[in-house]
């Protein structure tokens, strides 16, 4: 049995479609219900639906053998897991964005609103720029508009949300996409099953 931690939401649905297409479908997964665990004993798979930012936690601690997670989350949390494949979906970038026309005058620490504090700190440390992190969990774009921060560090897919809120990308920190990850110990003992799944996903990618 291979346990798969799948992120709830759009990314999880598209990855599940790929997994189902290569023979890892599971009854009930496509139904509209609130169940969080689905299992198919015959196919030897169990799906665990979790918050996208928690996928790597489940995999690192062995509650799931494999999982699908954005590179942005891996970069931020640095879990001790194998990162076996870039699925090439959920493509986006982690960017610095600021109100249109914003100029950093370097007269005070830059106030950065983000849900990626580690990534933001590392980015600005590399530029030797003093910052103040304002940790947020959602609606990051709001922060500069209401004066909570000078800039934001967030994932940008198309840039539409930024544009609608009067913001623009000022720097691209790193690209991100969905990754297929595995627990290091599970990989030793369920290697054949994990590699079969990996090969199927690679072919689909």
């Amino acid at each position, binding site marked *: 049995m291979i346990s798969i931690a799948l992120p709830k939401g759009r990314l999880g649905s598209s990855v599940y479609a790929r997994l189902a297409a290569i023979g890892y479908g599971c009854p009930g997964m496509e139904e509209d219900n609130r169940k969080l665990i689905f299992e198919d004993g015959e196919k030897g798979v169990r799906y665990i639906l979790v918050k996208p930012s928690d996928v790597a936690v489940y995999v*690192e*601690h*062995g509650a799931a053998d494999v999982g699908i997670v954005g590179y942005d989350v891996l970069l931020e949390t*640095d879990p*001790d*897991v*194998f*990162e*076996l*494949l*870039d699925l090439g979906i959920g493509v986006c970038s982690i960017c610095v964005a600021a109100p249109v026309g914003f100029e950093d005058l370097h007269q005070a620490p830059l106030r950065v609103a983000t849900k990626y504090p580690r990534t933001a700190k590392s980015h600005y440390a590399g530029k030797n720029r003093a910052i103040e992190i304002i940790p947020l969990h959602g609606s990051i774009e709001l922060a500069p508009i209401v004066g909570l921060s000078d800039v934001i560090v967030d994932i940008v897919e198309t840039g539409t949300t930024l544009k609608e809120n009067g913001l623009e990308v000022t720097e691209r920190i790193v690209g991100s996409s969905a990754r297929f990850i*595995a*627990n*290091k*110990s*599970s*990989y*030793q*003992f369920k*290697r*054949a099953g994990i590699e079969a799944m990996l090969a199927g996903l690679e072919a689909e990618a």
Partner: protein
Amino acid sequence: MTGYVEWEDRVTHALTDLYRSYGYGRYRMEKFEPYELYSEHKNYLKSSVITFPDSSGRLMALRPDVTMSVVRSAAPGEELKVYYSENVFRQERDTQEYREIRQIGLEYIGGETGYPEAETLLLAARSLECIGGPFALCVSNMDLVGALLAGQAQEPDVTKRVLQAIRRRRPHTLKDLPVPETVREKLHTLVTLPGRAEDALAALRLMDDGSLAAPIEELQTVADVLRKAGFGGQIRVDFSILNDTDYYNGISFAGYMDGVPKAVLSGGRYDSLMHRFGKPQGGIGFAVYLGELERRLRTSPETDADVLLVCGQASATEILDAVRRLTEQGCTVRACRKAPEGFRAARTVRLEEVAE
């Protein structure tokens, strides 16, 4: 069924007996040490050291590691074989939490080339066997990666990125590395080595242009030793377990147990660490992290004792006599005047029932 604590005692005895049988002596160390002993080698420890001032204001550390202490205690050129069973104390860099970690392990300082690897790897495999259950012993060779990158890593960042790609099995990140195509192909082989040790060694030989012969041979020797000892099914050649390149060199290895999410054993050759402390001889060793196994074995004992001995108004001497007779039969005993509520015993006996 016994609980985790009883299991840990049993495994500790089995492991220390095993190490003693191969001529290792017990190494003991203080819990408190001057911080300056560790401040220069903070990178060796993956976690932060827990510090506090002593009464004279000197900064002290709670023992964060055993290997470094053994290395310091060895005389230059001395051959030293020691085992230890100690708790170490660390502050996690991410969570800032203090952790007490149970470590049992051994260090083989000095010795002829080749034999220490064979003996240490064999004892690592036998340690995992002692713990019980399916296990995998992954072996790699740091020198092979060094030889592969020799003359390549002009930018310091490249080595770091290569090691990350190998440790995390990230073949898709190799395409961005500024290395020649031939090196990239070899790195890809390293990251995607097959599971069986013999297949992995064959794949390594295929990519050898002569510069990798010695480290591959070393891996082959270790694989042969383990196979002859009956561990052929458990050994893997796997470079994802590479240690820190500043302190370790040569063979490095890690052990995994089925159902335990993290490595339960970690070790390797650390000649570079020895040289940093001015010791010309080499060293190799490993530690078993029993705490990692706790979750798998976190089962409450079904009973608190084998026998609940209800003694009524008997004298202390009579009670002690009865307890002795029962313990001589191999039972664990809880003696009491009247049966305590909620106590779980396999059987309850009254003092009068314990025959002379």
